[in-house]
């Protein structure tokens, strides 16, 4: 006698895992890409005129909208002469049917913090130039990342969206009686590139399914001169030194291509 039971999510996940695993063994990906190939990217800037800078990035079916607002405010007490960057990411429920796994908002916080570190550590923004009156007033840059559709690899889309939005951001001097409007001075173009490890292979720009099935990912943020300004391993499998070196290399190449194609001014 056969008991007909609905297939659980676990069973579905296992079937999908096996399918993708077998593909990878054959050197293939479900969407036909090669292992080091990005999905189609589009970047549209200045899409939200209430923001001081904005960008809508699509990466395959992933859609991320980044809005930048700039306001005067107080500096932190221990850094009285530099501006402030505050990065926030919202994994709004519109973007995907799943509840976030793990403790609440952990994933969104990680995205925001990795994007933030990339911008900050690359010294892409000259924060000293954002000081209005030392110890009293500096420009505060709010980078708000709105994930509209989660088709996988939202971290890279967010990172690309953030720097694209910053490149088009205006310091709104006129609005706050602080001199004329001027473009936000951006000195470098850090780009985060995520690679997942799966069946011993390394896959760039993981799709949603690939991201779920992969045991681990490594995000590498590189700058125009090829230097690294941020890295973040995420996930439950370890990586070998050799894999890390190959991932850094793949990230550098991919970032360079995206930078040249989409982000150079």
């Amino acid at each position, binding site marked *: 006698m056969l008991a007909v039971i609905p297939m659980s999510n676990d069973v579905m996940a296992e079937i999908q895992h096996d399918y993708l695993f077998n593909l990878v063994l054959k050197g293939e990906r479900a969407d036909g890409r090669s292992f080091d190939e990005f999905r189609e990217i589009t970047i549209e800037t200045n899409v*939200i*005129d*209430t*923001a001081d800078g*904005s960008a809508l990035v699509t990466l395959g*079916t992933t*859609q991320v*909208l980044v*809005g*930048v*607002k700039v*306001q005067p405010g107080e500096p932190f007490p221990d850094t009285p002469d530099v501006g402030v960057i505050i990065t*926030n990411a*919202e994994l*709004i*429920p*519109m*973007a*995907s*049917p799943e*509840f976030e796994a793990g403790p609440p908002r952990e994933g969104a916080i990680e995205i925001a913090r990795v994007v933030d570190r990339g911008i900050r550590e690359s010294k892409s923004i000259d924060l000293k130039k954002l000081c209005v009156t030392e110890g009293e007033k500096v420009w505060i840059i*709010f980078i*708000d990342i*709105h994930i*509209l*559709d*989660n*088709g996988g690899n939202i971290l890279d889309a967010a990172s690309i969206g953030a720097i694209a939005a910053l490149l088009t951001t205006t310091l709104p001097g006129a609005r706050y009686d602080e001199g004329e409007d001027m473009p936000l001075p951006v000195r470098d173009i850090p780009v985060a590139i995520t690679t997942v490890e799966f069946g011993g292979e390394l896959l760039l720009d993981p799709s949603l399914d690939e991201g779920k099935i992969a045991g681990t990912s490594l995000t590498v943020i590189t700058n125009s001169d090829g230097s690294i300004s941020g890295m973040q391993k995420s996930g439950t499998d370890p990586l070998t030194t050799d894999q890390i070196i190959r991932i850094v290399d793949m990230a550098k190449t991919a970032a360079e291509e995206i930078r040249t194609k989409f982000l150079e001014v």
Partner: protein
Amino acid sequence: MSERPERFIIDGKRLDGRSFDELRPIKIELSPLDRADGSCYLEWGRNKVMAAVYGPRELHPRHRQNMTRAVMQFRYNMASFSVDDRIRPGHNRRSIEISKVSREAFEPVVFTKFFPKTAIDVFVEVLRADAGTRTAGINAASLALADAGIPMRSLVSACAVGKVDGEIVLDLMKEEDNYGEADVPVAMTVGEEITLLQMDGHLTPKEFYKALELAKSGCRQVYGLQRQALVEKYNKDYSVDEDDARSDAGGDSDE
């Protein structure tokens, strides 16, 4: 906040050149999102809103399930950069109230009894706000529900009416909303049943009745655009037949 204009109506035209009963331009894009079961992007004047629908799907926690019908959930949210002064991300009292009345605007039309124990989730994100975001969100949500294949008695169409310089005018733009004398958002079915009605400002009853009629004409125009978008997308007559819907309007509700 911009300055109050001296006059809102000059030579019978409004600040943006519209006549009293004219809508701002509306642009509709169906199914812009991949993950959602249904979605719609809608621009209305300078408003930009995205609506997504998930469901019917299992509802957690279980004690919130209803044994006889689907539970409608509606989340209206404004992006922090959607207005001039950045707003803090997350819910506030205004968005909670708007979510509630928007949800109630759909409860009379969705056949929730077909899907006991489930949830039907509607999410509206305001990406760029001008006046009228709640009505824009409802119009987008209506199409996202249709796009998700959720069975409904009727589309819901929404539009606001207000009063400026003593005149009742359709579809307030931002300056008219900020400094006008009244604002009346309305949502209705094809059968002209009112499913959302709010009002604030100052109107005589006579003015209010006039406003209500004007709002209804606005909703009818919106419905035309909604219908057209669905027809274009699905390349066939949308399953809600207008005449049927009208005759159905007097019938029994699903609640």
